[in-house]
């Protein structure tokens, strides 16, 4: 197992190198002199020179890249042009909010998506199957901001059941310990605060989960239909096993393996959706941080958040591979 993970990590080195080149280039492809553009029209020559020195812009490009990468390994993501604070610290402070939201969305999508896929596969081409197909295509085609808008209008403005946006209720703030709102509420025995945090989570979680649930439901349905046509299912039927035993123990178990991959890949894609969702719901995570950086043309922050999203993406894919090899020993033998 350890050698499998090590091989997987080594294979990543060339990919991560190109990822770093792309992120590094983001500031360099800005038309004109980066330092002048970054600081805007009102900057003095002194400020421009200081920024050029800070970004090592006076050195050859290869050396600039070297300094950038060495800095990253030391945890130096540069400084925000807006606040002057280190980007790494600002990202770390916002990371829990994004992780809380996306992990909950993933769990919600799994709880909704997998049963729908299984039910559709057991009744292929039935009315239920057609309805779920249309609904899942709707889910994949829906712009996140439209779904968010509709949910806000219905559940917050019209019915008044849930808060429109934000992370905490202003009357019941939660003291920050771990950065995870619900957990902090429970740890500090502030149950009202934790409940408020849950209420604030529902709408953004639903928006973020919709896309993943739709994809997952469709995917589980298709793989399950393939699996249900296999010989071992016929054997199980011939042995006289009960239908739900066949569906759950033979069909679902073998369809879940490919589903792990798709959950991993789509989870990472969902992180991209977090930018839109967090912006609309004023959710204080790294997605909204990136959006604000774009508005302020705060390039070090754009670079930092882009890199963190890519890292989360790559880490998820490694996790998926490891999980896959744990679940299916054949993969480990083939790849390790």
């Amino acid at each position: 197992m350890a050698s499998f993970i090590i091989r997987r990590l080594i294979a990543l080195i060339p990919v991560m190198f190109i990822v770093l080149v792309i992120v590094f280039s983001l500031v360099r492809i800005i038309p004109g002199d980066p330092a002048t553009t970054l600081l805007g029209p009102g900057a003095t020559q002194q400020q421009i020179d200081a920024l050029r020195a800070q970004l090592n812009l006076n050195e050859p490009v290869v050396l600039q890249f070297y300094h950038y990468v060495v800095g990253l390994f030391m945890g130096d993501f540069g400084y925000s042009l807006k606040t002057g604070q280190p980007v790494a610290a600002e990202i770390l402070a916002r990371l829990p909010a994004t992780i809380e939201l996306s992990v909950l969305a993933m769990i919600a999508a799994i709880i909704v998506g997998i049963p729908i896929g299984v039910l559709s596969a057991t009744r292929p081409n039935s009315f239920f199957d057609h309805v779920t197909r249309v609904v899942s295509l709707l889910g994949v085609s829906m712009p996140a901001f439209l779904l968010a808008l509709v949910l806000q209008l219905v559940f917050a403005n019209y019915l008044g059941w849930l808060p429109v946006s934000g992370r905490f209720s202003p009357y019941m703030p939660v003291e920050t310990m771990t950065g995870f709102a619900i957990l902090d509420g429970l740890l500090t025995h502030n149950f009202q605060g934790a409940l408020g945090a849950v209420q604030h989570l529902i709408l953004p979680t639903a928006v973020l989960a919709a896309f993943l649930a739709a994809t997952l439901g469709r995917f589980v349905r298709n793989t399950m239909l393939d699996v249900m046509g296999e010989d071992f299912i016929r054997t199980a039927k011939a042995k006289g096993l009960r239908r739900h035993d066949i569906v759950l123990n033979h069909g679902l178990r073998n369809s879940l393996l490919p589903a792990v991959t798709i959950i991993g890949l789509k989870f990472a894609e969902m992180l991209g959706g977090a930018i839109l969702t967090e912006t609309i719901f004023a959710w204080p995570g790294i997605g909204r941080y990136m959006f604000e950086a774009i508005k302020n043309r705060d390039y070090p922050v754009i670079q930092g958040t882009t890199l963190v999203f890519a890292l989360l993406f790559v880490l998820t894919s490694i996790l998926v591979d490891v999980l896959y090899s744990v679940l299916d020993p054949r993969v480990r033998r083939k790849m390790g």
Partner: protein
Amino acid sequence: MREILLFLRRNTLAVVGLVILLLLVGFIAIGPLVTSYSPTKLDILHKLAAPSLDHWLGTDAFGRDVLTRIMYGGRATLAIGLGVVVLAFAVGVSFGTVAGFAGGWIDSLIMRIVDAILAFPALVLAIALSAAFGPSLQNAMLAVAITLAPQFARVARSQALSISVKPYVEAASSLGLPAHRILISYVFVNGLGPLLVQSTLALGSAILQTASLGFLGLGAQPPLPEWGADVSANLQYVRSAAWVALAPGMAILLAVLSFNLIGDSLADWFNPRRRSEID
């Protein structure tokens, strides 16, 4: 042609998708010729008017007819989607086919770059790139095309890998045909099917992504009508005049849905295991 009719007869959802698409195209092609309103001219006296016989979908905060803006915005949105996919197809398929056909270090190099681009969530990379290029419609298109090209490259490469070992390719190369002719006339042409399915699905993503960039202020700049940008521009009035933001949003949904309905059915059709189930 018979194949197309058979496909449509067996795939109700594809027909639904095609009908939605044709209606949308007809609407944005003919609409601007019929409407008496301008998409950009201000009419502050009639701002945020509710839907009526004069303004079927009401007016926005500047008094512009929402329906007219959707018609013109649709022209931009569909043209952008098409442009992005053509660009992504051209770049992705060229590199993917060459990688699969050439093999060796060329293949390794191209595929590592593809992997690196795929290591970013597509929307994040598109946002970062268009922020760096500077906010404009052309730059947004370029950014989205860059994130979509790797998918085409992957499909084209696997097609090229399986086709380049076929007997007819061997025959062509033993006849002494130059590599570039084999590449275009045999490898590329015979691998087109899955690439066309990929294009239909990519059209949906291209529209969704450019609309998202527009929504974040990185795509079309005001007063140019574009669906994504129109949703975000009207967001602040949504509590009193929901139609101004919801209508362009619904237009995006319909356009993306129509391509996904067609693409999803095509993907099933080209997959032998799935196809037996449709039959």
